[in-house]
């Protein structure tokens, strides 16, 4: 929402900096009050809160730069990112110290590390490669990450025997680095497409397809009579409820399924209008489509609010067992991130729709973006290779076999193959420009599926992450 406002009224000169400064000061003051109350300044939640404040400030400033091209914003934005990174490092260190193992064991801890990597990479991309607006994309992701973490906050969980291995840490660190590099290559490929004069309506179609995919996968949990099933949550043990080994108990939240179906239709509308404009060759449909996007964003936000309200807590019936069972947002991290991700993608489209010329002016030229995309993949690919190797080595020590054809393993291999194809096409066939950018985007989509989709949709040995 804040982004949409910022786009409508681009603040000029120092106004934005003053505004951001004031809100940071206000938030810090609130945090200070909190600290006085609890009497403990350097705990994890305060550090995370500080990181959130700074990332939010940085995000606003990056966005301000994207919109108004005021150079001084960038300086302050990097400064805020640095401050956020310091606070984030503190939170990571605190978690590490408290848990006695590096923070990679749960979804919460992985997000903590992921956000850290993302912030660090943003600064590197900015300083080393001069891709200044990258923060416009990465900072909102970091903000979403930190907000998710607040919802998912868990106690330090003891590690089951299989996870007590140095190789696990090596494996997960490499995975985080590789995935962050893939994310970066995706963002760069998108920027390339903007600079390559790809039509704005093509982005409209892509955004709609992406969001449609999100709601389609959420609707796989659609139950009879319009319910939506989510995993039951055991508040006492802070864990999901299992009926048997690897069989989770689902509860059905009534009416939420209808809501998701409605949003699905709202999201499909712009896509249908886009297709009609292509078929009938009538540009008029596109204007309607852009308006429909606006409505779909509002509905998506509504869906998110409803989801937050109903899934935050409360008890619901289950189809597999009698009685009411409680659930919690912590039990549905994937639905939550999908909802937030959809909104975020649509807001980015709005940014493009309204501020395309400004964006084009401040992005590096298409050739440079193409090259940097390739370079990022050159970094990601060896990391992916080593990640798979470390995972295999660990599996060999924990389960007695280095390759089990487990869905997560297979998808990691698929990711590797997709990027291998990219490299072959680029090196031997000289694929440049658009085709290479599409490939980089496809690669990242596969990465996202491996990271989220496999855990959410497919079962396997990797049940803890």
């Amino acid at each position, binding site marked *: 929402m804040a982004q949409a406002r910022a786009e409508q009224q681009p603040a000029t000169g120092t106004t934005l900096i003053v505004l951001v400064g004031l809100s940071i000061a206000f938030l810090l003051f609130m945090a200070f009050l909190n600290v006085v109350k609890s009497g403990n300044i350097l705990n994890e939640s305060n550090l995370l809160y500080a990181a959130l404040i700074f990332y939010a400030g940085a995000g606003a400033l990056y966005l301000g730069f994207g919109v108004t091209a005021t150079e001084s914003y960038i300086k302050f934005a990097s400064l805020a990112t640095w401050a956020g990174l310091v606070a984030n490092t503190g939170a990571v260190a605190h978690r590490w110290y408290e848990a006695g193992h590096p923070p990679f064991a749960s979804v919460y801890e992985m997000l903590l590390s992921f956000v850290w990597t993302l912030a660090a990479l943003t600064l590197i991309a900015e300083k080393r490669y001069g891709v200044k607006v990258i923060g416009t994309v990465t900072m909102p992701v970091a903000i979403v990450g930190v907000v998710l973490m607040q919802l998912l906050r868990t106690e330090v969980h003891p590690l089951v025997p299989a996870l007590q291995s140095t190789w696990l840490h090596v494996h997960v660190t490499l995975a985080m680095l590789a995935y962050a590099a893939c994310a970066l290559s995706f963002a760069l490929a998108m920027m390339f497409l903007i600079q390559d004069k790809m039509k704005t309506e093509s982005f409209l179609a892509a955004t709609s397809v992406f969001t449609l995919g999100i709601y389609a996968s959420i609707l796989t949990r659609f139950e009879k009579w319009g319910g939506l099933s989510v995993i039951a949550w055991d508040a006492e043990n802070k864990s999901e409820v299992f009926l048997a080994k690897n069989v989770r108990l689902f509860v059905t939240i009534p009416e939420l399924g209808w809501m998701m179906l409605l949003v699905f239709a709202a999201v499909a509308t712009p896509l249908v209008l886009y297709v009609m404009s292509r078929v009938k060759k009538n540009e008029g449909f596109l204007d309607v489509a852009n308006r429909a996007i606006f409505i779909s964003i509002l509905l998506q936000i509504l869906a998110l609010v409803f989801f937050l309200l109903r899934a935050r807590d409360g008890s619901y019936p289950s189809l597999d067992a009698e009685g009411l069972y409680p659930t919690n947002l912590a039990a549905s991290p994937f639905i939550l991130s999908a909802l937030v991700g959809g909104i975020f993608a649509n807001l980015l489209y709005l940014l493009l729709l309204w501020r395309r010329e400004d964006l084009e002016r401040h992005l590096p030229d298409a050739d440079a973006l193409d090259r940097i995309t390739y370079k990022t993949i050159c970094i990601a690919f060896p990391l992916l290779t080593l990640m798979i190797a470390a995972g295999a080595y660990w599996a060999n020590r*924990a389960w*007695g*076999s280095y390759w089990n054809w487990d869905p997560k393993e297979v998808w990691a291999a698929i990711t590797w193959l997709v990027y291998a194809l990219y490299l072959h096409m680029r090196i031997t066939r000289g694929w440049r420009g658009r085709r290479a950018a599409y490939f980089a985007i496809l690669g990242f989509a596969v990465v996202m599926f491996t990271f989220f989709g496999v855990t959410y949709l497919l079962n396997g040995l990797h049940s803890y992450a």
Partner: protein
Amino acid sequence: MALSLRSASRKTWQTLSSIKTGVILIILVVIFSIAGTVILQRPMTDPDDMERAYSPAMLRLLDATGLTDVFHTYWFIALLVLVSLCIVAASIQRFPNSWRYFARPYKSPDESFRKNLPTQAQIPITGDEQGLSAAERAFKHLHLKTERIVRTDSFSLFSERNRISEMAVYIVHASLLLIFLGYGVVDAFYGWRGFLVLSPGTASNQIEMKNGATRTLPFSIRCDGTGEETYTDGTPKRWWSKLAVVDNGREIQRKEIVVNDPLVYQGVRFYQASWGRTGKLDQLILSAKPAGDTTRAPQEISLALNQTVALDPDTSVQLAEFIPDYVVQDGHVYARSNDVVHPAVHMIVTSKKANRSVNVWLPEIPDIAENASSPYVFEPKDLKTGVFTGLQVSHEPGQWSVWAGVVLMAIGLTFVFYVAHVRFWVVPVLDGRGQLALWVGGTANRNRDAFEQKFRRLVEQIQKELKPAAVAPAQTQATTTTAGR
């Protein structure tokens, strides 16, 4: 006929070694792999779950096509074999060219090469020797080694770095083949996996294989103890087993294994995989008090199954049965499960003099137990049930090939992505106006940005080295050109 055969084989070869075939094969591997993760797979799923998920007709179809076990079907394996062949063919096809490049570096560029090289510059000089020695100093300044190429009618400079990078892609492909060899050939034919369950004090050399068969090892494994440590909330923290290898009656090796730290002997690995209670009795601790006699203190006895303990010179007690989860039906005691939830014990108390045996049950089971007529009253104190350790046993001789492949691939990829083969040539020439100039050219097989920067620095450095010889800077128009890549 022979000709057509030859042309057919040539055609096959060409198809196999083309990048297009490789790409299509990889796409097929990807598609079938996806199918293998979306469709439930036999080896990992309960048969009941399979039947619940698919209709009988669907399941028959999936089973018939092998889609319920994609990764072990002959056509998937054939596909991987084809990919390997494709890699081999493509490498062989391209290798001679690269090898020529590698073995016989192109050191003195001819005129047409000089003309077509994308990155080049010309620097005016006053004499061949002066120019070349300035260039040599410039190379040295940039930490590049140079070589003077002396031909009958000319001499020039050549400098290169990381020639091995031309071979890097073959290193990567070879490493992939090593991995395939280790997993798909060595382990597929000579590797095996099984399971071994041991309780403390027992030894075995019989491994239960995945397919239900039994494999006999040439040595046996003895378990000297096993245990579980839990966190305060009851989730397992650590499982351990003290194992010993016994070969030919001699103890060879001892190790306490935990999850993530196996025992290895003769290439066979023993992993801590599971841990649990057997539901069998290990030891029963009882207090026994003579019936009706309150003056004598109760004595504490411990019993194992079928063990007989004397209570006094005349009376003894034997532990006859242990039922972990008992249920009484029609005057008989049955075991409902092997979990120790409702344990019952059956003891026989014998008096020699009276030549009488009494069946004592704990807890007392009506109509069956004769506890009332027993000379002793028993009270259970502690029940120690047996534990077992589940060991995953595997023999994967191919893994060394896999790890070697992984290391080789890491090295290869480092060279492929980060080490560029950079070459520079310096030749004194006459420029367009007939004046003496130093032609400087260079190429890099990757990372052109960094290379071009380096090239510019080199040209600047040569100009700087030439300065003392008083060359007007206006004349030093170094024309650096780059082809669009």
